[in-house]
């Protein structure tokens, strides 16, 4: 991807983020943090590519460690968010 395309995507996505997140009510700020944190574990994609490329040992090792950390981030983040959100209920 050429630098300008990448930068365009970056800037537009930030605007989308601002638009959506400003509408999140304070009561959900903690689940928002853990949930958005889980999706920031998207680095996992890069980690998978490094761990599976099988070029030399060192990048594979780095990729392997990155897969572990990113998976903790993703799995832990989504599960704990789900746990929190299922506790929110309305007045019956």
């Amino acid at each position: 991807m050429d630098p300008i395309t990448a930068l365009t995507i970056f800037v537009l996505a930030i605007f989308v983020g601002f638009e959506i997140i400003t509408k999140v009510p304070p009561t959900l700020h903690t689940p928002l943090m853990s949930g958005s944190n889980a999706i920031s574990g998207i680095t996992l994609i890069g980690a998978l590519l490094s761990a599976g490329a099988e070029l030399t040992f060192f990048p594979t090792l780095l990729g392997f460690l990155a897969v572990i950390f990113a998976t903790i981030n993703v799995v832990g983040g989504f599960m704990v968010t789900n746990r929190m959100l299922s506790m929110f209920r309305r007045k019956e």
Partner: protein
Amino acid sequence: MEALINLVYLVAATLFIFGLKGMTHPRTAVRGNWMSASGMLLAVLVTLISQSILSYTWIMAGLVIGAGIGAAMATRVQMTAMPQMVALLNGFGGIASVLVAGAALNEAIYLFTSPSAVTDSVLNRGAAMVVQFGIATAATGLIGAVTFWGSLIAYGKLEGITGDQLRKRFPVLDRFKLPAPPSLPVARAEQADSATATGETAAVQRSTAAIAPLVTRLNHALTTQVYAKGVLLGICVLLGLLLVISPTNIVLYWAIVILASILGWYLVMPIGGADMPVVIALLNSYSGLAAAATGFVLGNSILIITGSLVGASGLILTSIMCKAMNRSLTNVLFGVWVPEGAAASEDEVYGGKIKSSSPEELAMMMDGVRRVVIVPGYGMAVSQAQHAVRDLANLLESRGTEVEFAIHPVAGRMPGHMNVLLAEADIPYDKLKEMDEINPTFDQTDVAIVIGANDVTNPLARTDPQSPIAGMPILDVINARSVIVVKRSLSPGFAGIPNPLFAAENTLMFFADAKKGLLDLINALKEQ
């Protein structure tokens, strides 16, 4: 193939956006979280069929280990420990980005230097690409390492791990004594904070008295601190530029990572207590930006999109938290609350005016009241009192009293901390009112019950322009007909100043641990 993968990435990005959109209402939030999770699953699966993946051994091992640890953490963590959990997860995201960028640089150099390489190195693809690659790699190392170490320090602080404990456990640490960041004033504030928990008022008074002659040294210390951070950041940027010029020099990358680690340590170490929500939100933003930077390294659109969504989200939360404390971000990161005028001493504010009360007396006062507002603070989290709070609210409601909760944006140690705890105790979210909504109703409130909150109810924020918390938005608890404050002692909150609310005409102090005190109050109400 490449096109298919990118198309699926687009679907995943859309799912993330809809998932975050679901977070705008508690009704749709669970579904939103599932959408985000399925987007992630989709992105991972399509990556696994990519042609550049030759071996699955390491991948599978990593996925299994990571998923096991993540699941264990998520199911075991207590709701009161959620700030620590989020801090740790932020950090893991950061370090993953550092490792991925390191691996990518390593691969690029390998492909560039080995003549037999089948695939083309990114370093062969023209100046523009090389510059993007270099800048992005340096940025990932910098942001990722700051996020990782900053988050670890934040985690340690929230868990209450101190340097002394660590040194006892690992005596080796004595040999590597890093100079402590000069943080005199915050040390005082933190002392005050921990004293709130232990109830050592005398010690706090001593430390407050001792701090006065130190103001000049303090200013000096602050300047040094700002310089140290500035210099570290400057060197990192310089090394980054060098990396852009000679991208095959991998030592530069790891040097950036090491310096950024020290920077992260320095940045978070002096921050504590009530400033934690800002730090956690900021690190959240950084973990997103690190992922976005990794996206620039790999030229991968889904990483850029997702990372910037999270970066934006963290930034918004950071600014909300700063506004709720009436402080700028630079003030939180570099400065501290330094009293400008002479703050009134505890004796002046409290002397002879404190009315201490018993559960029986309070139960009598609650007889036949129409409206009660409960104001929870960090003290409620510390003593795990959320279930007792629920029992009290239910009991009052069964006697015909209207009960609502007033939530200050920075109550607790992370954005929304109180809401999650009260949700855990099964309190419906529509009873939790935001500050602006509940403030006008305090003068129609018969009893306001403050549970482990202090600075966020301090009327000095409105009345005393000299006060360190002047201008901070507060809950106007003092306007209620009567106020009950459940608190262990009169020790000051994070701001380190006395709270005239405690000495007000209409306030009764109930000196007790939040949970125990509430249980006593519930029993007294039942016996009536």
